[in-house]
């Protein structure tokens, strides 16, 4: 055979290899084909192609492997078991940028499924190679390496610590300053996932100078970048007061408030989460946020949004109000209570309802003025309904009960207490009667209203053990009224006459009241 014919055989083989690998890569990009590919044994066929002579075939084989591994964790485990990872890690240091991108893609596809697979990736020595490729010139390589580090670090604290020990954090902070948007996004996301696990890791991220750059990027118009930036800042600030103060010193307020009106929903949610994480630590930080007008902005945000994204806004209001009564009054003045009442009415998810109940309890527990503001928003019957409803979760019932009790201990607003008198169970009724006994001692108009609205009758109907607190309160209420009325009411109750008799009895008692008082 002539030389050309011999060479033609080789050319044909190379062409067919190239075609195979390209078709497999394309098929692997659609999820419905992957089962068939797996059954056909594509892993064992792709493995030798990774070591192929032609670089394009290597890259396409790596790309196909990456797509397969990212589909589900069985395939990722097969990649790990097939000892492909050391090969990839080695070539990550050596090859051209396309291969580096493809190799980093495979590493990320394997590491994203579970901590064990990520640990396997780390055990192959991938971290050093990835950190070296973070310093590469090509932004695509940087993005792929940062993405792989992100997926490794997102699982748990030990893996994040391993990533940090490999020296990734300063390079990621450098990557944030790159002009390309994709690299910025991924670097911000990687810092986010590193900082979220523990305060020490967050401190490491802060020590590398990340906060200043993240704060600069708040004004960037790209929505996905802003999501990651806000998420990263909130993960940093959630751990301790010092970190939160450092985030505040980077002058993120009031720029964060403008992001609350961003068209993208997730940007708004993450901005609210950041405000919540800062507000929850100390009263001074909450005061600073209130002075910057943050409470009004968050209340508007609650009005505009629906569903699960409201949760962080509600919790932020609760945290602010919990610190001191001045801050709670600030929340009330900013018209927070009607908005929270609307949230309580509109939302159907139990965890959002329990968060709203908790926030209302924190607002109303400080003083009678606060309790009055909360009671006037017609919130107490709804809280009672949640507490009594058997279908609410335990958490919702507990929080509704606690909120109700803490508001009732300070509430002196009689029109709100009246409906509770008729509907409440005995443990709540105790507090209601206690409040009535305090109010009725001094207010004559309230006494008149109490009798005419049938409250006194209801009080007579309550059975309490003699000597208990409830009996004492009932006695003190009965002492506020003259004997005849009390007896008349008691007789009415005992006889259980028709309503018309009650009415006449009521007017009779009013006349009596008019004479007496």
């Amino acid at each position, binding site marked *: 055979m002539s030389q050309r014919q011999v060479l033609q055989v080789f*050319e044909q083989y*190379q*062409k067919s290899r190239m075609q195979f690998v390209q078709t497999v890569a394309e098929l692997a990009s659609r999820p419905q084909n992957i089962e068939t590919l797996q059954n056909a044994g594509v892993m064992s066929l792709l493995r030798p192609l990774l*070591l192929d*002579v*032609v*670089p394009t075939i290597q890259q396409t084989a790596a790309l196909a492997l990456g797509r397969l591994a990212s589909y589900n964790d069985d395939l990722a485990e097969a990649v790990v078991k097939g000892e492909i990872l050391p090969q990839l890690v*080695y070539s990550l240091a*050596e090859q051209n940028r396309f291969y580096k991108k493809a190799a980093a893609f495979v590493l990320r596809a394997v590491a994203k499924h579970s901590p064990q697979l990520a640990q396997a990736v780390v055990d192959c020595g991938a971290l050093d190679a990835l950190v070296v490729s973070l310093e590469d010139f090509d932004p695509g390589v940087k993005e792929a390496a940062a993405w792989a580090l992100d997926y490794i670090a997102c699982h748990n604290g030990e893996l994040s610590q391993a990533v940090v020990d490999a020296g990734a954090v300063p390079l990621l902070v450098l990557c944030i300053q790159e002009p390309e948007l994709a690299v910025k996004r991924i670097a911000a996301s990687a810092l986010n996932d590193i900082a979220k696990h523990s305060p020490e890791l967050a401190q490491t991220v802060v020590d590398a100078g990340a906060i200043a750059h993240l704060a600069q990027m708040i004004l960037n118009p790209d929505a996905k970048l802003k999501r990651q930036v806000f998420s990263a800042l909130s993960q940093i600030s959630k751990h301790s007061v010092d970190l939160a103060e450092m985030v505040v010193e980077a002058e993120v307020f*009031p720029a964060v*408030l*403008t992001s*609350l*009106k*961003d*068209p993208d929903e997730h940007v708004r949610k993450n901005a609210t989460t950041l405000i919540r994480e800062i507000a929850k630590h100390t009263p001074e930080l909450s005061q600073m946020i*209130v*002075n*910057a*007008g943050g*409470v*009004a*902005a968050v209340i*508007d945000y609650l009005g505009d949004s629906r569903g699960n994204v409201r949760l962080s806004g509600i919790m932020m209001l609760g945290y602010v109000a919990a610190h001191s009564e*001045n801050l709670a*009054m*600030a929340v009330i*003045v*900013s018209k927070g209570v009607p908005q929270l009442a609307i949230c309580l009415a509109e939302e159907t998810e139990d965890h959002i309802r329990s968060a709203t109940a908790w926030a209302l309890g924190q607002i109303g527990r400080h003083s009678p003025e606060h309790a009055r503001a909360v009671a006037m928003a017609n919130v107490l019957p709804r809280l009672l309904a949640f507490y009594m409803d058997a279908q609410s979760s335990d958490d919702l019932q507990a929080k509704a009960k606690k909120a109700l009790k803490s508001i009732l201990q300070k509430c002196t607003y009689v029109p709100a207490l009246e409906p509770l008198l008729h509907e409440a169970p005995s443990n709540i009724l105790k507090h209601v009667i206690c409040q009535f006994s305090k109010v009725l001692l001094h207010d004559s108009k309230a006494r008149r209203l109490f009798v005419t609205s049938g409250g006194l009758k209801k009080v007579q109907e309550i059975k309490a053990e003699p000597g208990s607190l409830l009996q004492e309160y009932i006695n003190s209420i009965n002492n506020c009224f003259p004997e005849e009325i009390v007896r008349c009411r008691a007789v009415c109750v005992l006889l259980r006459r028709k309503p018309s008799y009650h009415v006449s009895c009521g007017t009779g008692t009013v006349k009596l009241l008019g004479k007496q008082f």
Partner: protein
Amino acid sequence: MARLEWLQRQIEGIKEEHVIENREHSAAVRLQSWFRGCQVRARLRLLHRKATIIQKVWRGFRARNQFRQMVKKAYFVMKMNFYNEMAIRIQRRWRGYYVRKYIHNYYALKRYLEGLTIKNEQVRKDLEEFAELQRREMERLAREREGQRKCLQAQRLHFLLSTEQCPGVFNSPYRDFPHEMELRLRSIKPLLAKNAPLRRDSGGSPACSLPPVPSKKPQGPFRDPAEVLQQRYRPLEPTLRVATSITALEEAREELRREEWRSRVIDDIFQPFSNAHKNRKYERTLHGTSSYEQVDYGTKYFREENKEKRQGEKLLFFSLGLSQNHPGARVHSPIHVVQLLGQREQSTVLTCVTRSRGS
């Protein structure tokens, strides 16, 4: 007798005298004792009086002292109460002032809350404006993109422009005024095919594709325009030789070398048989280059052996020897020998037979 009577009269007389004496004595004693009693009583009375006077004076002195003390104490208590009252008044004023000014300053709080309301309004207004600006910006961008898209569409459909003779699709004679598309068509310049922006594929063929317009075959010796276009715009199909770069061979060699280096386990290259390597010293494998002696265990034998302890072999040899000497007996095959022996010895016999076979 008379003397006795005289004596008796004497005795009686003496008795009377004694009685009278006694009577007088006791009377005198009585009088004296009464008088003495009076004297003593008078003396005691005097003493009592004197003692009472002394006690009276002393008690008065003591009581006056005590009274003085009581007065002093009462005065002191009165003073202290007064001071306390005044101090309470001062403290009350001070506490009220301090709490109202520093702890819970109602008016400052009120002012703060009013200021906060104003600030909130301000912030809300600013955020509304910002949102409005953003919305308008996005609308403007959307409108611009829409305008560009329509412009592009008009440029592509420039041939639908109406002429003098023939009204176009968008300029129907039944309309009052031309359609906006018509006006746009009039205003734009036609697009050259090579400058047209790439149309992005919307994932498969569009839902409603029109049937192909039947083209009139042009008159004359013209080839089919499809053929011409195909020939003119035939895509380049370079051979593999053209497609591979000029340094592909060197690169491939480099690659091979690297591959070799990567996957090689032994550092020295396997050279094919040639004269230059005739005198090469043979390198033993790691397995064979142990500094320790190569033990027979594993090659010569692999089981523990204790030949002295084994009884079965001697028995076997002994029995075989006997059977040979015995005139009536035949030399059985080993299998028969084994069967003759008991169960327990069979295993030992088997082992020694196999071992003898193996060694």
